[in-house]
């Protein structure tokens, strides 16, 4: 496997009427080609903002931290994403090397233009295809994602498709440019389990077929267990745990990850009580000092947790957590 992307110290703040809020705080991770990384965390933890940052797709009120470094490794050499200035320079990244499947599929298709026209338009911006070639590739992609009668679907509008079909059409469009990295933001959340299983299978096939990397954003740990090679867990803009899917799900090291897993209703024991994480997620305007999780943590170690931000410590090969439990001596952060 070869390195696909390195994200180092990604920090992103928003200027709002109520003040400057930190949506992503010093997040670092990397991904190999052919690897699927699950990104999990509660609503508002910064998953979508992180995803959009990789393509610099954030709105005008977004301010990147000065140490933010995003390196995309393409065949022609590394690209420093933060140094790309305008839309022309970003072209190689947006819709070319990286494709994003948005959280809301309806929002991603213009209502008055057919699915096919949108696919062709997108392909012609990012490739040198003629219109006829672009159409051929688009129909082929619709077929690849399991849409029956793709040439008819090509001429239809988003509202004419069912939820599952629309989601697959989204994936087809995102894949038609043969991206190196696919970012799928909650691609199955609105789907029924049966259709979800189909979409998951499809994405797995595509990884092995095209060798691309996938960042799979979801709050469903079952979906992560079935699709991802590794997992990153976010809370209030912070990455709190990272590791292989087996390690994180079987031996969660961060109290927040443990809380998420304990809250899940599972079919193994339907009489087991459901255990919520106590308390509410703090507002991003009132981020707790020290460890951001200290207001809800069941394992707080005392004043250190509210005074000192925990560093990432290795709990195993390829498994790390940012919690003082795993860094007893401390050493400041």
């Amino acid at each position, binding site marked *: 496997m070869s390195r696909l992307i390195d994200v180092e110290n990604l920090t992103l703040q928003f200027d709002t009427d109520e003040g400057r809020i930190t949506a992503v705080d010093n997040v670092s991770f990397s991904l190999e080609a052919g690897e699927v990384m699950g990104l999990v965390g509660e609503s508002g933890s910064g998953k979508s903002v992180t995803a959009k940052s990789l393509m610099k797709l954030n709105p005008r009120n977004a301010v990147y931290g000065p140490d933010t470094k995003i390196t995309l490794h393409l065949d022609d050499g590394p690209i420093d994403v933060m140094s790309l200035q305008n839309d022309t320079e970003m072209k190689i990244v947006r819709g070319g090397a990286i494709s994003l499947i948005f959280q809301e599929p309806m929002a991603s298709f213009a209502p008055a233009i057919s699915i096919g026209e949108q696919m062709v338009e997108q392909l012609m911006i990012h490739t040198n295809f003629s219109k006829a070639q672009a159409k051929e590739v688009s129909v082929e992609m619709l077929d690849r994602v399991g849409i029956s009668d793709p040439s008819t679907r090509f001429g239809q509008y988003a509202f004419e498709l069912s939820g599952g079909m629309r989601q697959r059409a989204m994936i087809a469009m995102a894949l038609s440019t043969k991206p190196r990295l696919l970012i799928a933001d909650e691609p199955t959340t609105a789907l029924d389990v049966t259709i979800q299983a189909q979409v998951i299978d499809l994405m797995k096939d595509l990884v092995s077929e095209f060798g691309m990397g996938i960042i799979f954003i979801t709050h469903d*740990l079952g979906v992560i267990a079935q699709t991802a090679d590794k997992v990153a867990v976010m809370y209030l803009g912070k990455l709190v745990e990272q590791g292989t899917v087996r390690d994180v799900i079987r031996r969660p090291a961060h109290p927040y990850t443990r809380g998420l897993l304990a809250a899940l209703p599972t*079919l193994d024991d339907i009489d087991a009580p459901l255990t919520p994480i106590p308390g509410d997620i703090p507002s991003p305007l009132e981020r707790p000092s020290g460890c951001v999780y200290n207001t809800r943590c069941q394992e707080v170690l005392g004043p250190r947790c509210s005074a000192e931000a925990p560093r990432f410590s290795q709990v195993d090969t390829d498994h790390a957590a940012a919690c003082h439990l795993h860094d007893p001596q401390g050493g400041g952060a």
Partner: protein
Amino acid sequence: MSDNPLITAQNLSVHYPLRGGLIGPKPYVGAVENVSIEVAPGSFFGLVGESGSGKTTLGRAMLRAAPISKGDVLFDDGEVAYSLKNLGKKELKDYRSRAQLIFQDPYAALSPRMTVRDIIAEPLEVMGLTKTRAETDERVREIAAKCRLNVEHLRRFPHAFSGGQRQRISIARALVSAPKFIVADESVAALDVSIQADVLNLLKAIQQDMGLTFLFISHDLSVVAHVCDHVAVMYLGRLVETAPTRALFSAPRHPYTQALLSAIPSLDPDDRGKAQKLEGEIPSPTNPPPGCKFQTRCPMAIDRCRVEEPLLETAGPEHNVACHRWKELAM
């Protein structure tokens, strides 16, 4: 559960007319077709099925908020007995205080310009259930406390609350008229798992405390397994299986129920690829297939399935299934 059911659907059909069709029979969407269920008092009754299977429509018909085209819904709480098809204006008003809906989306459902106190109090005022403001306030405070909202919360506006807190506000609003029957339609679907667990525990606690009966609509089978005592599975407007929760999850008899259960993503990364996959999608209810409605996707379908619609048969204690081949599946 030998008590009289609190609410009964009797061969209930809900048809929505479609435009067009000047000649011949009027085209319609059969959102609910010939459904019979009995919900015992104090039950937490789960309703599952894919999108478009008719869950919301059935729930709404039981609240007299969807048209009853055929059959009837009977309500009997020991104080009053109603046939929902034939409700007079006064009876309907009374029924509205006895049967309530908790909405799916905690963000859309609450008016941003009203304080939490006013949101919760509104049903009391609309139905004229309290006589003085002091009485209203007391009822609101009492129900808010049950939903873990304090006096300080009551003064604020809903935008200042998190998703879980908003859902608690919706619940308080639904409960303030002291209803007997609650339809909770995807009430936790929009919530994060940790908040979801909290809201589910709250619903269960309140149900026991106030002796409520719930129709709990959800597409999340793991959630249903944990909170419901009885489950009904719908497909294309029909009831395909209904059983006590334990029986449904340990011995599902209908191929569709089996496929649904098998599609739930396992938390074990080593279970990959083990799921039994269901191909295709739910057909359009305007043009349902002949025979068994599941035959276009059923791995067990035989010729008989394509011509003859299966009826519900008894497969165990309170366990009913509509499939020609359920006995083979039970082996």
